[in-house]
């Protein structure tokens, strides 16, 4: 490889520079708007409209305090955390077990189930949401956080199952057989062979499900009306689109509060996340 690169050195170095320059532009295009949001969250509205790109004159942490109080983060955050924990655990159980049996058992109609799961991913829930709403009101599950949990699980489960199945198919069945020779039951094979080998998949899937719940807006706005049950997304939206929208610094601070945990968790786990996505990805 080395010889060839030296041979066409001038043009290849030029095209490499161009390539890197383009990539830097794209990276800036991706994160500049986010950085601007953070920058503006420390300013007053007057400062933002005067010169959006300047550094804040005085760093206004008050924006964050006000946003925390007005956006009702203290009640919304526990609600969202509850939804995330229940959903992720639920998805792990449902998709983990389903993927295990789809990957290992070749059950009757297993291919049809896998196809169904793949197709259902492309069909968003909007078509059935009003009906779901009516069913849920008969069951007294509207305006109730427990009512949202099964919907979130059902939304995340198909893609998670497909992803996890891909992970499990990649593990040689010799591993199972070896464990079975030692007298392991199906559950023990799952627990001691499959789980330790596929945990990056579980992690990625859990992150995706958690992200979905954290950012989810439509179901929350449809099913939850009481302020004390609102999760972060609708609580924040109500606050931004409400009376104080004109206060830009505040709207920006509230948005940063919503974005920050996700970004921090991603940065901490990005290696595993990208690896998990790549391994399980659509192949």
């Amino acid at each position, binding site marked *: 490889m080395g010889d060839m690169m030296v041979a066409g050195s001038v043009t*290849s170095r030029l095209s490499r520079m161009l390539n890197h320059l383009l990539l830097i532009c794209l990276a800036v295009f991706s994160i500049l708007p986010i950085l601007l949001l953070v920058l503006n969250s420390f300013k007053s509205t007057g400062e933002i409209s005067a010169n959006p790109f300047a550094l804040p004159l005085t760093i206004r942490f008050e924006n964050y305090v006000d946003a925390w109080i007005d956006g009702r983060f203290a009640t919304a955050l526990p609600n969202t955390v509850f939804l995330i924990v229940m959903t992720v655990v639920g998805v792990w159980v449902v998709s983990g077990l389903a993927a295990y049996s789809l990957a290992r058992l070749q059950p009757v109609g297993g291919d049809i189930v896998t196809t169904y799961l793949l197709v259902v991913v492309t069909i968003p829930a909007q078509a059935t949401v009003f009906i779901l709403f009516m069913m849920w009101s008969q069951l007294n599950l509207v305006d109730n956080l427990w009512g949202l949990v099964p919907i979130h699980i059902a939304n995340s489960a198909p893609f998670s199952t497909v992803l996890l199945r891909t992970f499990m198919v990649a593990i040689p069945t010799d591993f199972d057989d070896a464990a079975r020779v030692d007298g392991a039951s*199906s559950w023990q094979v799952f627990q001691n062979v499959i789980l330790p080998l596929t945990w990056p998949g579980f992690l990625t899937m859990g992150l995706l499900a958690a992200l979905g719940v954290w950012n989810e*807006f439509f179901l929350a706005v449809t099913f939850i009306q009481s302020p004390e049950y609102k999760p972060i997304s609708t609580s924040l939206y109500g606050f931004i689109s409400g009376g104080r929208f004109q206060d830009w610094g505040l709207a*920006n601070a509230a*948005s940063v509060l919503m974005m920050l945990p996700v970004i921090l968790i991603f940065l901490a786990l990005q290696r595993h996340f990208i690896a998990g996505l*790549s391994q399980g*990805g659509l192949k």
Partner: protein
Amino acid sequence: MYTRITAHFNGTVKDVRQNWHFYLMALPSVIAIILFGYGPLRGLVIAFLDYSPLRGFSGSEWVGLDNFRAAFGNPFFATALRNTIIINSAKLAVGFPSAIVLALLMNEVRMHWFKRVIQISTIMPYFVSWVVAATVFRNLLSPEGLINQIIVELFGGRAITFLSDPDIFPWVIVFQDTWKYCGFFAVLYLAAMTTIDPTLYEAAMVDGANRWQQTWHITLPGIRPTMITLLVLLTGWIFQGGFEQILVMYNTSVFVTGDILETFTLRLALQQSKYGLATAVGLFQTLISLVLVIVVNRLVKPVNERGIF
């Protein structure tokens, strides 16, 4: 034929008896799918009823296809349908190749840390919710936002009302969508590129192929299965989707070009309590999307040997 069926059936019974723990494991998700995937489908009957929540399923009058006729006759339906197709097709036309180009560019990078930094920066917007993305883009595009500051202060031009001009609004939506998803899809393509056999490149270099020729003849064919899978899945989104984004971005001044079928049905259901009508539109969208996905899958089969299902 009969013997084959009974043999198959006996095989199934034996299979179930031997592997009952596996079937038990699949049970929770089968129940979940039946309850939440198919349960609501029973309610699709509403599309054929003059439904009111007070009268319930049995008390509402059966009106046949009246809801569909009323929906298709509604002047806002035609606008919403057109907008849905235009916006989502434009998203596909811009977003799909962008992710491939980004992945190809990243694939050429040899410095590991640089590749990592680019990958992290470009995937970052994927984690930003639409509610937050709306604030992000208001910072940029509102009349006092960054872009207009640059236009007015630096170039002495006139401020552009990006968010309330019906001619520009759809492009803002397409641009924002690409901003959010490009890096995420690029990861999937990049993953596919790493599985390409390196000896193919070595052979091409021996034959004197340059980087462009290698990209065209080895890398692109190598990621074709991933490209086709994503293309088929994304065509399912031409008739629906992008709902939350529009909901938090649009306003009455851009209804002409920004109102999509989902926002149209949301207003029908929530403001006018026309549940039957709203469900009819939803059913129409789902059926069209399903047909589209199946047709596109058929079309790509010759190219991709087996399609995605």
